[in-house]
């Protein structure tokens, strides 16, 4: 399974984009949609194709300063790997 590297610039894959109401944000893709909320939503919002993965982690660690920094990195990495397999995120 491919993993994001520090210098990767994660972004939504071709044909994937945001949709849904503000209170019920979804990521739309061919033939489907996933509901995203909480940290998952925040991670995807930060995947703008400009920010590197390491910058994204630093941002998350600042926003979720009460959580363990290493756990944040591991969780974000796994989350993006899963979405990469589903072809929702590229990096």
């Amino acid at each position, binding site marked *: *399974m*491919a993993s994001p590297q520090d210098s990767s610039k994660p972004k939504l*894959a*071709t*044909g*994937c*984009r945001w*949709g*849904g109401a503000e209170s019920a944000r*979804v990521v*739309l*893709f*061919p*033939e489907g*949609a996933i509901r995203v909320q909480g940290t998952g939503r925040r991670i995807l919002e930060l995947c703008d194709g400009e920010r590197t993965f390491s910058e994204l982690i630093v941002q998350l660690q600042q926003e979720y300063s009460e959580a363990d920094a290493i756990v944040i990195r591991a969780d974000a990495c796994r989350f993006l790997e899963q979405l*990469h*397999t*589903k*072809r929702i995120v590229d990096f």
Partner: protein
Amino acid sequence: MLSNPLALIAEITHRCPLHCVYCSNPIELASANAELPTNDWLRVFSEAATLGVLHVHLTGGEPLARTDLHDLIAGAHHAGLYTNLITSGIGLSRERLKELVDTDLDHIQLSFQDSGEAQANWIAGTKSHAHKVELAGWIKEHRIAFTANLVVHRQNLDHLEEMISFLEKLRPDRIEIAHTQYYGWALKNRAALMPTRAQVDNAVKIVASAAERLKGKIRIDSVVADYYARYPKPCMGGWGRQLMLIDPAGRALPCHAAAVIPGLTFDNVRERSLEWIWRESGAFQKFRGESWMPEPCRSCDRRTEDFGGCRCQALLLTADASATDPACSLAPSHPVIELARLEVPIDTVPPQGDWIYRANPK
């Protein structure tokens, strides 16, 4: 509490330049001069978005047959819907493709009938394969999600690996291996299309292996053959639960085959709002929930997973739309499926003029 639909299937025309033997359009095709005009479709898209619909699937027949397709896609996009174009590609030049991409079309799903040109054209009843291959190349010039869809059945399952390999070279984002489902024209041709159990079991292995190999590069989805399953498919995600289909004449149906069920009145979007239809239309209420279920469905633990299977299939095979889906191994009518399986010849000799090509609407 009734949840909102997630997807709208916009069957904008039944006109089509192909004559695929596996087509699931109804035998009774909507006449070209009864088609819903542009403004009605645009209003439907707007109502759909308000109702909470996320995806619109522009399909048919062949949606490219509509000269207003560009306006329809633009309207759907403007309404906030994710736009999927389900097409054979016939009627799509490089220039027209660029126009559609420029209207912010999100996703194009291009059908293929086989990997070999002669075979593909034979299944489609039209010379179409070469154009599709060329079109795939043009699609890759743009940033748009691209699915290559391949319908499989007895006549092509023996070379599934070769077909997947062919599709991979077109570099789609997604591959869909769709086992033929027996409605409309496909049901008429079932004797020639139905695979052997060995073909189906082998297909499952081949697709799983390809999915693993292509992980992270191409997503493979497969729609299964319920004739060989133990339990029925959760058809449409449940009757009137997740999807709405509007046919070319503006009739609102819970699925593409529902017009075969007698006694249902389908409301028309020319007369009623989408919201009213979703909540109040008799056709949508008819098999919603569990109160219509006979035994064994009514007390079955699986009823929340498969929603009782397919009503249209029950009607087509048992003449009773309320019956347990015969595809279920627990259905009293299951022998009808077992019989269909037994009728599949061991060898896969192609039919010699025995199958029926999908007609044009009047």
